[in-house]
């Protein structure tokens, strides 16, 4: 029952995000979809992923999108896109959906009985991140830091050019 509600919320948010005309409304609907997804994670007993989803996506990514919209457009609305780009978009969407559906349908995971759900505590996740997956974590951290410094450099450069 709860899953149905949250799944409906997520899908409704996602549909609203792509169909609303006002970009800020789209972002707010996207936030609703993110929150619904977080609720589904929590329902599955994945506390860490659920809260991280809210912290990262609702608290950071959505705000980032908002800033991007407000700094690049004046009124937050956009015109109608052409028929050709609609057709292309629909084609890509159908192709991606078909591939994913086919992959899920033909995967062996569906035919096995789901293993008994291991209750992953925060401590286990932390230990796994810090011991077994320490190197990937460091690499991602380095990558993000480089991206951050790069973004700051670009922004600074623009400032100096201004009279």
């Amino acid at each position, binding site marked *: 029952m709860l899953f149905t509600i949250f799944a409906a919320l997520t899908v409704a948010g996602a549909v609203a995000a792509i169909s609303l005309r006002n970009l*800020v*409304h789209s972002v*707010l609907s996207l*936030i609703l979809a993110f929150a619904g997804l977080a609720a589904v994670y929590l329902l599955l007993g994945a*506390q*860490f992923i659920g*809260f*991280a989803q*809210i*912290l990262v996506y*609702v*608290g*950071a990514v*959505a*705000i980032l999108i*908002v*800033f991007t919209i*407000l700094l690049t457009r004046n009124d937050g609305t956009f015109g109608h896109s052409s028929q050709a780009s609609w057709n292309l978009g629909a084609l890509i969407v159908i192709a991606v959906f078909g591939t994913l559906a086919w992959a899920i349908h033909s995967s062996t995971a569906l035919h096995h009985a789901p293993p008994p759900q291991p209750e992953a*505590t*925060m*401590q286990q996740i932390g230990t796994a991140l810090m011991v077994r997956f320490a190197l990937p974590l460091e690499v991602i951290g380095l990558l993000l830091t480089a991206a951050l410094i790069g973004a700051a450099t670009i922004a600074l450069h623009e400032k100096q050019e*201004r009279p």
Partner: protein
Amino acid sequence: MTALSYNSLHHSSPQAADQIFVIVQHWIVGHAPVGLQPLLAILLSVVAIVGGFGLLFAITTILERKGLGRIQNRYGPNRVGFFGSLQPIADAIKSLTKEDIVPQTADKLVHLLAPILLVLAAFSVYAVLPVGRNMVLVNLDAGVLFFFAIGSVTEVAVFMAGWSSRNKYSLLGAMRAIAQMISYEVPLILSSLTVIMATGSLSTVSIVEKQAGYTGILPHWFIFTPWGFAGFVLFMIAATAESNRSPFDLPEGESEIIAGYYIEYSGFKFALFFLGEYLGMFAISGLAITLFLGGWNAPLPFLTWVPSYLWFFAKLLTLIVAFIWVRGTLPRLRMDQLMNFAWKFMLPMALLNLITAAVWHFMPAGPVRWLVSIVLVVVPYTVLGRNQMHKGHLEKRVYRFAE
């Protein structure tokens, strides 16, 4: 999730006064049909949280107005009730009866939802705050993470309020508020990370339990370690910025942008913004108490007979008074000072404090550990602080956009 943690908890203390609220709750729940008991238990706790912290909000408003009045050599409210003590009630009636004005060009739905979302987020974080022994709504395994995750929803509410009002001042205020919140969230989380490193847990309840016990008469609170002290100071500065209070009240800046993101709100919605702001301040102070000030533990070993929730609220009121004092004392920062302070001082200090906490954790206990940790805190503070002082103040300020 352990929604029913109350029922499974055994009473670790036989004192009735300490556990009176828990016992009363059990008694009321015991009369309900079995199927409704979990729901009723949660409902009672929620009512207690909303009522208790709502009352604290009323007390704080009168305390703040009276205190600021004292600091600024005036009386403050003194017309309603004995020495103005009934002023909060008058304020509540006023805000309930005022006309609710929504600007014609405003985005009506978003304009309506913003204050509701803000207050919802502000109240939700109280679910993981242990206000007394056995007195926490849910003991989440990821409690601190939950706190910060829900806290970040506030930014969305602030943006919704600022954008939907269609007012340049409210949009400016919202942008300022969000930029400030994002900047200060980093040192806030990094400074609380030291405690999580020390306890090895994200659960607020076990963090408080780890701070129980005394050496001589000194309690085992984390503030009494070098990294804990530095972490507490960093945390409180970031918390002041997070809750948009003076000297970090640029988002409201009356003299520049009138009132920031809630300028187009009136009546009860305006009161909701006020409520949300104060609730945020209480919640983050409560988290500071939980992380650094030993939660509901008594400060001295011979005072443990005082009920635990009284200690929590005594510490909370102390922090609130400190907030009011700071507000009455310090002038507002400028935007560039605010950002420089966050990224060039708070962030390096918080990162170095993580190293200090790690050194403290791995060194054997003794005076050498104290010495090394204190050096690790004081030297960066002096170097960074002096560096900032020399850079910031002595050169002529150049205006790029205004002349």
